[in-house]
């Protein structure tokens, strides 16, 4: 089974976000970057599927700057076989140009399955995976928490408000991974050593500008610290009084 996993280099979820001097981008200095957590589930699922099939290839594809090579190496250390960096300076804020570049690469690969994280924790669009599927005219299930594949047919589950959708599809297909799909492995030392020697191809790509213009990027209004209404269970009546009469939310 030949599987592509799309991965992205993003600021760590514990990172404090600072706005750059242009007021339109973040200031990435001093920020720790990681493999997007949702992409870890996608990589893990690809490795599991390849293992279950007994043969195949897992290709980690990333759209990003040169620094994303490190992110690809992380996926290779987890067990992916090779990497492709689609090198571009800036992915922009409109998800479609990024999806187009990925689809152009993935459409050429003859993949049985294309996996992505359900969203990247930086832009939070939750769009590129489903867009890639549409551009390639492939069936798609987004934000899956469960997957079975047998004889070229798949069944996936995705959580919706108050329920779980069960979706059936045929391969080739595009799936995006939600937390809960699996427990991603940590790269072992041996994997990290092997990853250094795995092939990583770099291709220059150009994104079209998209249809969104950034007017500004700003930090949200800080919440003001409120007050401690008291200590221990004795403070409960004062809390409820404040919620009912002051905040008027009860």
């Amino acid at each position, binding site marked *: 089974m030949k599987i592509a996993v799309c991965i992205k280099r993003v600021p760590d979820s514990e990172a404090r976000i600072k706005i750059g001097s242009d007021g339109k981008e973040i200031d990435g200095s001093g920020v720790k970057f990681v493999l997007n957590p949702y992409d870890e589930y996608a990589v893990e699922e690809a490795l599991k599927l390849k293992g279950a099939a007994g043969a195949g290839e897992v290709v980690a594809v990333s759209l990003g700057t040169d620094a994303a090579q490190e992110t690809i190496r992380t996926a290779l250390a987890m067990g992916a076989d090779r990497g492709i960096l689609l090198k571009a300076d800036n992915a922009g804020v409109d998800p479609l140009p990024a999806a187009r570049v990925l689809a152009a690469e993935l459409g050429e690969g003859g993949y049985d399955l294309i996996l992505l994280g359900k969203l990247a924790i930086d832009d*939070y669009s939750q769009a590129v995976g489903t867009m890639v599927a549409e551009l390639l005219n492939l069936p798609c299930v987004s934000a899956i928490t469960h997957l079975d594949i047998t004889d070229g047919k798949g069944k996936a589950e995705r959580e919706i408000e108050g329920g779980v959708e069960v979706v059936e599809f045929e391969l080739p297909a595009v799936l995006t991974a939600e*937390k809960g799909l699996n427990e991603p492995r940590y790269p072992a030392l041996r994997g990290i050593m092997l990853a250094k020697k795995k092939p990583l191809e770099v291709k220059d790509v150009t994104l079209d500008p998209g249809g969104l213009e950034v007017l500004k990027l700003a930090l949200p209004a800080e919440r003001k610290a409120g007050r401690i209404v008291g200590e221990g269970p004795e403070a409960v009546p004062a809390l409820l009084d404040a919620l009912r009469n002051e905040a008027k939310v009860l």
Partner: protein
Amino acid sequence: MANVLAVLEQRGGALKSVSHEALTAARSIADGLGGEAHALVVGPAGTSGGGLGEYGADKVYLATDDALKLYQGDQYAQLAADRVNGGDYEAVILPATALGKDLGPRLAAKLGCPLVADAISVAYEGGIVVSRPVYAGKAIYTLKITAAPSVICIRPSAVTPAPATRDGTVEEIAASSQAGKAKPATTVEVKQPERAAVDVAEASVVVSGGRGLKEAENFKLIEELAEAMGAAVGASRAVVDAGWRPHAEQVGQTGKTVSPNLYFAIGISGAIQHLAGIRTAKVIVAINRDRDAPIFKVADYGIVGDLFEVTPKLTEEVKKMLEG
């Protein structure tokens, strides 16, 4: 003249309240453009498109077929794309629900147009200007849309449905399309949980627990308070990673972003990624034994104390209050 299309969401043939929010947003953009607000309703036979003039729809396009009872992403996207291509639309608005977050990008890809996911505001200022959180709300973009049409998903509760008086004329349209994928995916069923729970992302009150509960069993304290308040149960990343709670309950940057009227953080210290997910809650209450916990810096009200004493007392008093 350019119009705006709101793609509405139904469950079992009944429209969800987020649909009225999307329609209200479409109405306000249409007013800015001097055009019409249209609604597209896709659902099983018997789904009604009536009464939507009261939320500002000039026209309602209704596509019904029992095969469309459950959300079928491929068909829904094709029907929506056909409608947009058949009219003069400046923008398409969907609710940023599980359905909208799947359908919006599909539609934008089919139309080859920009997508704004999870907008928290939409306005017409000589062009459509939207704001949307990134980094789970740690920063907010203000964006101007420079192409038409565009697809905009609006976060639930970001818009308050506003009454309007429009015709809301219903026109039935074909529920199948000639175009579409050779092998579409098919939603075969929706599994309902044994106990109907309020989803943490949609609830107006959320009671969340963290590592301070010490072990999974103690979450019953959280469940009891949530039940007394008719609230959804939420959880911190630490307790989800520990396997105490399902990830569907996780609140924060790698979980759900919530905007309830009232949020209880119990035994949650307040890691940055958790705070990012609750920033837009109206009122935050923290219960924690550590007076210096970061959660108190964002909480509107706090009680410093042992959650094993405070929480049961709170449940008891809430029950009394709501019964009395």
